């Protein structure tokens, strides 16, 4: 343990091992991002507005490329609203026009009204560029951990504590 610090090469190698774990995870995320053309290719459902299709905590995989056909009515899309940085997962229910300038309207399957209320002030529709991807696959429930962590911050402390304990108890 101490001898590793005396040898600069060994110390550098040990730091590198840790750094490469982080950087590889980040680059895999970016790779997925680039392939799917979406800034956030995996999202977690935060609300029950799309029940019974998606529950809170479902993990969604997004695809943001239009091969052959445009994004069409009926697809479940994830979009960003100007001024809010929480992406919303809802179904595309109306489409007026074609191409980039088409006016799109979305609605949650479990909501009684469409999303005009959720859009920014004075905004009545969204456009293709607001969408960060259509849902192509999902894994139920596994994203619930992130919801728990963001809703109960003390859990983060507990988790860090447990990790610290593990590191102390098993010296590798």
């Amino acid at each position: 343990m101490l001898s590793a610090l005396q040898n600069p090469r060994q110390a550098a190698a040990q730091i590198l091992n840790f750094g490469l774990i982080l950087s590889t995870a980040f680059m895999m995320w970016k790779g997925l991002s680039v392939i799917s053309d979406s800034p956030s290719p995996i999202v977690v459902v935060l609300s029950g507005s799309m029940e019974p299709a998606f529950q809170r905590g479902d993990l969604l995989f997004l695809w943001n490329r239009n091969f052959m056909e445009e994004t069409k009515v009926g697809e479940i899309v994830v979009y960003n609203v100007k001024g809010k940085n929480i992406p919303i997962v809802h179904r595309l229910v109306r489409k007026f026009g074609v191409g980039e300038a088409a006016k799109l309207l979305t609605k949650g399957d479990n909501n009684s009204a469409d999303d005009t209320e959720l859009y920014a002030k004075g905004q009545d529709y969204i456009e293709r560029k607001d969408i960060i991807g259509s849902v192509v696959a999902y894994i139920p429930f596994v994203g619930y951990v992130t919801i728990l962590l963001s809703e109960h911050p003390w859990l983060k402390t507990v988790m860090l504590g447990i990790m610290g304990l593990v590191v102390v108890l098993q010296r590798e």
Partner: protein
Amino acid sequence: MAVSQEKISVYSLADLKNTTDDALPVYLNSLGFVQSHTLTDVRLGLGYSAFALCAATFYWDYTYGFDSTKFYTTIAVAVYTILNTALTFWIWGVEKNTVYVGTHKTSGTKIQVQTKTDKFKAVYRVTVITTTKDGKSTTKKVDKAFSGWFDAAGHFVTRPFQQMLATNVELIGQADPKNVVVAAKKEKVDEVEDNRSMDDKWASLLAESSIEDAVTSGTPAKSAKKRGKKA
């Protein structure tokens, strides 16, 4: 000096191997070998450039957003993949668990030491590749239990470790004749082809057994204790 101050857990194979790996360069450097760090330096170079690339990607993604940096991110991901593949190849295909590369000051002979352990087996598996100046290379494999140079408390005992290397590897033996143990002769007897007369065989067998007796009477644990007292 003979016994290390630091103690390790003798049940931890990683500790046994790491401590021994650390002692190896110290010993070989003291014998007049000049250590070469090229293998490690290339690995560090590849690894840190990959990491730097990742840091840069993170920075521009964070500052300028996804859409305006998409092109550069794509290139960065491709280059990162290449660098990481090269790094993996370097570690598995070129380094192959090498812990020491060095050249002897006077003879110019190159030595490369690779070490590994098998899971749940406290055996140090050493491969030594020596290449003389005129390009003749020999490979020697030695498997020895860690108990040969760790005492029961987990102290590293220098002398038996050095003897193990000097005895089994000819090049190290030449550089450090004091540490070559007499028992090494026994191996040579074994190697001799059996086309001798019955009397000769008997004689050699007797000689062997007497050497073995001599070796077993001086058990490593005892000798380690003696040295411990001296130090």
